[in-house]
């Protein structure tokens, strides 16, 4: 029997039992859609995290207070008192001590409520140095960023994030106007450029004040010099690891620590932050992928079930075909191809549904889905494979039927 005839016979059988075939395909379809979307969601989440981390700036090191156990992990549970100070930041900024560091920005942050007349808005107040804009690769769309004079005078000036500005000032240009925090009036001197790709609001919703203003006038507290984190920008991508070494050595020295294991700070690279952030997503992806594979397996069992029913139901047809000269192998092939046709159809429809899902999902749940062609093709191949694997047993049962028994059955 020629392949062409086998395929034709199989598709005819599938088409003859429309409802049954559709239900069988549904099992495969759901599994394949789940696989496609899981992979797509995983890729989407990864891309999102990467974007967010890239928005921090380029060639960046982030020094945080508290210890860390290794160079890649950012361990939670920061020290109860901040161990990093403005002096640390100034030391790293010294070009003689750290030649591969281009710029350093110490930041201290806290959540505050700003008011403008009747409007009030909770945002992140960031106290930092003028170098912040360079380190974080941010620009202002109107007005100017804080400068050395502001820092020296501890001026009551603020640069607002684009979202913060639009929340507090619904009309007109905010530059030149005032916002109030805790009784202190702060003059708005600039508005930051929007990071459009960011899903994370903290990059667009913030208020930046000079570090001196932050520590001396606004927040203060017991440790006026302590900072939340120090951003260190290396001169280039190639010098990033040298900058890391220099920063590490300087801080150990300044803090009087002899063993690197006892460090009371940790330095993270963007790559290490990415790894830490995506490892959580990876776990989710593996879990969801596992569920998807299980649903595919269930779909495969559905195929086997239907093929067994099909063999039983078409026992006379099998007997007749054998009487007319079909060899066992022709019968086996016919049923195998039929199972693969079911798998293929379910797979193709599943990928189509996955594509539809990838278009619809972002509108519904605000998550990004990135489909990959290779994953889609692999999913279709998997669907056919499942058809074949779960078709083997029913097909060989059909092939083994004795023609007289098959013909005799009513």
């Amino acid at each position, binding site marked *: *029997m020629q392949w062409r005839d086998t395929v034709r016979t199989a598709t005819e059988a599938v088409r003859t039992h429309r409802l049954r075939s559709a239900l069988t395909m549904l099992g495969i379809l759901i599994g394949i859609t789940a696989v496609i979307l899981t992979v797509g969601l995983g890729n989407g989440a990864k891309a999102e995290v990467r974007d967010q981390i890239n928005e921090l700036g380029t060639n960046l090191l982030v020094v945080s207070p508290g210890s860390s156990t290794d160079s890649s992990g950012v361990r939670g549970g920061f020290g109860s008192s901040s161990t990093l100070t403005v002096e640390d930041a100034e030391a790293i900024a010294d070009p003689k001590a750290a030649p591969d560091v281009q710029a350093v920005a110490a930041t201290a942050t806290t959540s505050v409520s700003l008011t403008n007349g009747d409007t009030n808005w909770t945002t992140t107040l960031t106290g930092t140095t003028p170098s912040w804009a360079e380190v974080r690769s941010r620009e202002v769309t109107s007005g100017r960023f804080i400068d050395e004079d502001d820092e020296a005078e501890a001026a009551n000036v603020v640069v607002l994030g684009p979202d913060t500005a639009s929340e507090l000032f619904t009309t007109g240009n905010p530059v030149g106007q005032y916002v109030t925090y805790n009784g202190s009036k702060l003059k708005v001197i600039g508005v930051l450029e929007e990071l459009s790709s960011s899903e994370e609001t903290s990059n667009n919703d913030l208020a930046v004040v000079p570090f001196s203003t932050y520590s001396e006038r606004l927040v203060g507290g017991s440790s006026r010099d302590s900072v939340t984190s120090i951003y260190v920008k290396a001169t280039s991508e190639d010098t990033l690891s040298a900058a890391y070494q220099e920063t590490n050595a300087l801080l150990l020295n300044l803090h009087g620590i002899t063993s690197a294991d006892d460090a009371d700070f940790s330095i993270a690279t963007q790559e290490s932050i990415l790894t830490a952030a995506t490892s959580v997503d990876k776990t989710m992806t593996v879990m969801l992928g596992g569920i998807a594979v299980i649903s595919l397996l269930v779909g495969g069992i559905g195929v086997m079930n239907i093929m067994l029913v099909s063999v039983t139901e078409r026992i006379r047809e099998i007997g007749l075909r054998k009487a007319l000269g079909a060899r066992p192998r022709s019968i086996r092939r016919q049923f195998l191809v039929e199972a693969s046709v079911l798998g293929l159809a379910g797979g193709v429809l599943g990928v189509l549904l996955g594509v539809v899902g990838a278009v619809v999902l972002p509108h519904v749940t605000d998550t990004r889905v990135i489909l990959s062609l290779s994953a889609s093709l692999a999913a279709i191949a998997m669907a056919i494979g499942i058809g074949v694997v779960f078709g083997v047993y029913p097909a060989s049962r059909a092939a083994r039927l004795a023609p007289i028994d098959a013909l005799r059955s009513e």
Partner: protein
Amino acid sequence: MSAVLQLHDITKTYATGAVEVQALRGVSIEIDQGEFVAIVGPSGSGKSTLMHILGCLDTPTAGTFHLAGDDVASLDEDRLAEVRNRHIGFVFQQFNLLPYLSAWRNVELPLVYTGTDRHERKERALAALAQVGLADRADHKPGELSGGQQQRVAIARALVTEPAMILADEPTGNLDSVSTADVLGLLDDLHRQGRTIVLITHEQDVAEHAERTVQIYDGQVRTEVAGAVA
């Protein structure tokens, strides 16, 4: 005339659990090229078992069986399938047409398993349908045909491979008297054209169409009588 079919001392024993049933106890039959032979017998006589062996659907326990010169008693399943395909045209009581295929697609089915080219298959299927007088029904599905017409399609399917023998198992069992006459008339025609026909039946008046009747009783050939030549 040369014998197209030679059975010699065929026995067939079925083992159902502990009980052994001897369905055939030494049957010897010879059928010549172009003969029209009826095999008759009551139910339980071993008639069906004999039909299965004649049709190469089953192998005998002992004895020799030559079909068109080949010894088929000891062939494996693949070779038996080939022999059935080449040498035997089946006509069943239940017609056994595939309901989802049109008449000509049913007729071409044996040729599919010989690997015949598509165009030739269709040509030969249509020719076989014309031979049974159903050229104008080629595209009808079995459900759209009467019982008699369905059996004609089945006979066309049996003819299409030009087999050494047409083996008809109770071909009129499911037909009314008009269709019965119709189908038997067709078999007579085919016989006149030189086809070898083996007809298995339990009805005496159907058997009378054959040149020769072989009576099976208790797994043995009881008598061979020459019937009325149609």
